[in-house]
């Protein structure tokens, strides 16, 4: 049993949080995340939830409060975006190093300056090495489902690592779509209550943020790396089991779309994927063998998958909504390193910065460039900004 609703991805994610039944929600507003925590306050006011709702004075405090709650053995949630995420940066590594399975939503937004409230991936990708699992979603439905899956992944005893669920600012957070909301008993069947020994307990006193010097520090980090490696399998399992209980799944860490006999593929992450599917379909109608690879888990990165497609396609283009200045698109670097030794031609398309629309026209241009590249024609520079105001 479930119900349908026409809601934004922020609202859909809020339903996911409600259904995951956290004990504590710490909330601080920031565009474009605000309507998510507002919705969580509505649920409380309407008697549909019974979490403790903490109104804190900053994003740093939002994550610190969530950490405190988790240290008491509570399931905790918070959300932020852009400058807020950067401000809570210090607490992100506190949470991950101490292995507290908090789930947060980041409504992806550009970072200042120039000041901009619209969507791209600069905020989240700059937190790449914070020790958080990072999942990116394509639409409101996936936002709801992934928040629930995120708790399952984070709290797995072999993982015990926080998860950041990323929704594209405005393109998803403020765009309405039909979403299927599972009922509570279905989610309860999927997601057990949170139990942990990594908490304060008067019968077993411990410190939860100890100093670890050079003598044991590397071993701690090694165990975090092991947890991320274990998470790869757990993300797949969590998604598969969600499919069997709730009836929807997203192919785990990475999804192929029309890739079976494809000559060229685009690699996408987030809401761009939806538009790229439409373009791939149109190209297929015209006999062009275009495919699509959607990255759902950015950390852990699906390294084994990409290493396994080394010479499968003739050209691969990576769509980036962020760039590491002085190098290349952030996602491109990772895909390229997994493909080390491959003969496949590669290109990197930087688009959608600061909320600029990534239209079907722009995505068609990418595919056409890839077909050129495949045929040995000039496909342009390896790294290209597309959809620019001027050439």
């Amino acid at each position, binding site marked *: 049993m479930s119900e349908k609703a026409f809601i934004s991805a922020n609202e859909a994610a809020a339903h996911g949080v409600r259904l995951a039944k956290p004990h504590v929600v710490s909330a601080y507003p920031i565009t474009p995340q605000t309507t998510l925590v507002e919705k969580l306050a509505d649920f409380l006011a309407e008697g549909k939830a019974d979490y403790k709702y903490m109104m804190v004075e900053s994003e740093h405090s939002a994550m610190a409060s969530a950490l405190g709650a988790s240290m008491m053995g509570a399931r905790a949630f918070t959300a932020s975006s852009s400058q807020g995420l950067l401000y809570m940066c210090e607490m992100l590594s506190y949470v991950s*190093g*101490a*292995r*507290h399975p908090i789930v947060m939503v980041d409504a992806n937004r550009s970072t200042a300056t120039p000041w901009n409230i619209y969507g791209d991936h600069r905020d989240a990708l700059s937190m790449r090495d914070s020790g958080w699992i990072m999942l990116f979603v394509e639409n409101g439905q996936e936002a709801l489902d992934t928040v629930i899956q995120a708790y399952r992944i984070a709290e797995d005893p072999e993982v015990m690592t926080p998860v950041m669920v990323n929704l594209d600012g405005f393109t998803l957070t403020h765009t309405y779509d039909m979403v299927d909301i599972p009922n509570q008993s279905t989610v309860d069947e999927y997601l057990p209550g949170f139990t942990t020994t990594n908490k304060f307990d008067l019968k077993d006193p411990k*410190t*939860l943020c100890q100093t670890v010097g050079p003598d*044991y520090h590397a*071993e701690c980090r090694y*165990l975090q790396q092991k947890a991320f490696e274990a998470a790869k399998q757990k993300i797949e399992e969590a998604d598969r089991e969600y499919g069997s209980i709730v009836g929807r799944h997203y192919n785990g860490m990475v999804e192929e779309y029309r890739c079976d006999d494809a000559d060229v593929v685009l690699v996408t992450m987030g809401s761009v994927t939806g538009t790229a599917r439409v373009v791939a379909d149109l190209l297929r109608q015209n006999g062009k063998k275009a495919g699509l690879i959607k990255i759902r888990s950015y950390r852990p990165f699906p390294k084994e998958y990409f290493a396994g497609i080394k010479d499968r396609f003739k050209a691969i283009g990576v769509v980036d909504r962020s760039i590491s200045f002085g190098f290349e698109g952030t996602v491109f670097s990772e895909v390229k390193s997994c493909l080390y030794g491959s003969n496949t031609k590669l290109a990197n398309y930087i688009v959608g910065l600061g909320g600029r629309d990534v239209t079907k026209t722009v995505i068609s241009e990418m595919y056409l460039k890839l077909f050129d590249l495949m045929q040995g024609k000039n496909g342009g520079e390896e790294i290209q900004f597309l959809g620019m105001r001027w050439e």
Partner: protein
Amino acid sequence: MSKPKVNSSFKPPSGYNEMFFGASNGVGILPTVNSGFRTFHPEFDYERCIKCMFCWIYCPEGCIDKTGKELTIDMDYCKGCGICAHECPRKCIAMVKDGGLDE
């Protein structure tokens, strides 16, 4: 004194299966004495000490014990800062170099 004593039976983790989880660990474990960087240590002249307790108040480590007949210092914790000697109004605490012939 209520400070924990050195736990001589403490064994550090000998493998990943014995590692502490995340950044958590049991409390009250003192695997070694906690006085690492001391060069000088205080010694009382009990003939002149009037137990005014200035040293007890000022000691930043809280390692001066007043429960016995005389004031004593827990050398597992004393860092040798010399504040007790400096504050003593009777100047009856001497700072003596560690590692003397009698040690």
